[in-house]
């Protein structure tokens, strides 16, 4: 009788522990993010500089999240950064001359990729490359440019 109560208590304890782990896995690390499912397609783009961009960064169109960055690698031939992303299939008619720009949410915020569709009739499909890109804005470079321009024409 008493050992039955102990077994129940231990069972509840282990269940609580496993539920806690499951909660952390699903809710906190966001394993179930919608962009991991099948209704997505892949795009990639090459940037001169992706400083500060990370995996799982947002990909947006007009400020609405439509996908996320899955991998950041270096293309050994062009020595540019290759960024792989998945896009929700709901946004399938991105024109071929779409521009991918790395932007920052606020001054200290995280980096994300903003896609701006153009006017071309052809659309991007699975595995295509976004050709037009704008690299990350680097504050130090900007400050440096301002300083040098002020120095040359005062």
């Amino acid at each position, binding site marked *: 009788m008493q*050992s039955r109560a*102990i*077994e129940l*208590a*231990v069972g*509840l*304890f*282990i269940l*609580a*522990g*496993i539920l*806690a*782990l499951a*909660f*952390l*896995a699903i*809710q*906190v*690390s*966001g*394993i179930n*993010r919608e962009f991991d499912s099948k209704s997505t397609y892949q795009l990639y783009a090459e940037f001169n500089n992706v400083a500060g961009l990370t995996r*799982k*960064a*947002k990909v947006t169109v007009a400020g609405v999240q439509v996908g996320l960055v899955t991998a950041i690698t270096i293309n050994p031939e062009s020595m540019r950064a290759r960024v792989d992303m998945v896009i929700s299939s709901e946004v399938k008619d991105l024109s071929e001359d779409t521009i991918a720009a790395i932007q920052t949410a*606020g001054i*200290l*915020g*995280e980096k994300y990729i903003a896609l701006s569709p153009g006017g071309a009739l052809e659309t991007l499909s699975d595995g295509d490359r976004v050709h037009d890109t704008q690299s990350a804005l680097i504050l130090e470079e900007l400050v440096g440019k301002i300083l040098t321009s002020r120095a040359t024409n005062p």
Partner: protein
Amino acid sequence: MTILDQIAKLGQGGLVVVGNLGRAGMIVALALLGPPDFRHGPALLIRQLYSVGVFSLLIIAVSGLFVGMVLALQGYNLLIRFDAVEALGQAVSVTLVRELGPVISALLFAGRAGSALTAEIGLMKATEQLAAMEVIGVDPIRRVVRPRLWAGIIAMPLLAQIFNVVALWGAVIIGVGWLGVGADAFWTNMQDYLEFRRDIFNGVIKAAVFGGVITWIAVFQGYNTVPTSEGISRATTRTVVYSSLAVLGMDFLLTAVMFGVN
């Protein structure tokens, strides 16, 4: 003469330390290796999980709640200076899952369960129960040490995850409920940053290592007690001191290995 005595004492002390380390290693090896005992093993393990895990649950949950609330308050006060309170969920959850969850619950576990283990085994030794077991042909290491060691290794990760969830809940109460951080920003920033393999799974491994180390120290201190009431009280103190130090030291090593070089 006196200098020679000093040197001899030093050498003797060193021998005792190395000898103890060897005995502790043999105890853990004998307990973990060797054929499993399917007849008595599960019942013994469940009993130990009960006394080590279930009894620690309340202190872990209550401490977790307050730790989470404090983290949210302090994090908010810091982040508001940078106008970045949306990052509160991220800051709190990273701190908890990677470090504070495993470490604080391990320290509590050392105080709550480790000391009890030492006292229990020390008393078994003082009342010659261990010797009696050997006389009737029961191996005290397999009977006493093994279930306690496994119970520590299994219970610690579960306790740490429960600590994390309760602490996160405390942080939500303070951060979202009281200080008014947006709930969506709180959760999405957290989900954007945390990764299961890197953050949560490493936390589980940390906790399991801590559980093993704490129980190892506790069991050995009990086994090595001078069998008097003073000896037991000293051994209990040593368990808490040594295992707290071991947890903090191991935490640095594990963090260096897991998160050190990216």
